């Protein structure tokens, strides 16, 4: 009963927050665009999306859902980076708002079909990997990285819904090699039921996000994409196993 009440309250506040925050942030960015270059406007637009996501995932469900973010890199660089994350639940894309960088996400087809949020994702330059051939994806991703925009990717392609981790798709690792861009493994634990796969019902819990040190291009430049994706998968898998044990 408590769970239902929590969800009713959360989704009500979430809708209310979205109705207010989205137009306000859009207006703010629109005002910026009058005096700023397109590039700077896009920067602020993407940051605005991050702020929206951060409030939605950190503030609204608090204190029933608590998020702990840990950055293992003592001194963060300026980027751009390719953030590679494990994917357990639909909250993962929102959790990435914790990353203090200008980012876009590589998404499947369905997020682009979400009302309002899908349109904003498209405007922000999110890449729908299944709607374009690899060459086009690679070209756009490299262009974004060269502009200084970091890319967040969930290479499993779909949510696992539990503590397992699927095989990684290699597209983004080919991009990393080509663009000479460092890869940052990001490990997410504790949100496999927030919400469970196939449900919107959020359950109380503690979500941990560990951002591991960047893997520089010099370290993987000679690796084949297949080897690289499995290397990153192993790094994430080992860290997530430790995080799950500490739960």
């Amino acid at each position: 009963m408590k769970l239902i009440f929590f969800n009713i309250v959360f989704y009500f506040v979430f809708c209310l927050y979205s109705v207010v925050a989205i137009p306000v942030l859009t207006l703010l960015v629109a005002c910026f665009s009058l005096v700023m270059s397109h590039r700077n406007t896009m920067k602020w637009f993407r940051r605005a999306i991050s702020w929206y996501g951060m409030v939605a995932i950190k503030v609204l469900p608090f204190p029933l859902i608590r998020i702990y973010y840990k950055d293992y890199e003592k001194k963060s660089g300026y980027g751009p980076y390719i953030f590679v994350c494990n994917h357990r639940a639909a909250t993962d894309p929102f959790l990435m708002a914790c990353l203090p960088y200008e980012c876009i996400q590589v998404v499947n087809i369905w997020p682009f079909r979400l009302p309002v949020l899908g349109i904003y994702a498209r405007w922000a330059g999110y890449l729908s990997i299944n709607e374009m051939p690899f060459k086009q994806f690679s070209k756009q991703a490299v262009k974004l990285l060269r502009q200084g925009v970091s890319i967040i990717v969930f290479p499993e392609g779909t949510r696992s819904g539990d503590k397992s981790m699927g095989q990684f798709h290699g597209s983004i690792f080919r991009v990393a090699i080509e663009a000479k861009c460092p890869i940052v493994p990001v490990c997410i634990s504790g949100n496999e039921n927030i919400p469970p796969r196939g449900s919107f019902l959020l359950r109380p819990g503690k979500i941990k996000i560990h951002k591991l040190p960047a893997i520089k291009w010099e370290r993987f430049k000679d690796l084949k994409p297949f080897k690289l994706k499995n290397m990153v998968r192993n790094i994430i898998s080992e860290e997530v196993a430790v995080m799950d044990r500490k739960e």
Partner: protein
Amino acid sequence: MKQEITEKKIIAMTNQVFEESFEIETERLQPKMNIFEDLGLDSLDIVDLIVAIQQKFDVKIRNDERVRDIRTLEDVYRFIIILKKEVALSETKREQQKV
């Protein structure tokens, strides 16, 4: 006439392709292994695999529809065995025609 390679040799050469192109450990190369779920290949890796197989076995398979049905390592072996037989057969026919 080219010397026909045995099935055993084809399996060994295929495994070699997986070891060289994807650096997969020999122990993991079991016939029942699903090349996507167990070995972790994706659609782009399949393109690399096709190129490597073409070079290794001197065959052309880029537009072969049968590639789509491949799931396990055993399927790969069987596919190459059939392919080599087809190549050998067409070469024999060609030589017979010449004679």
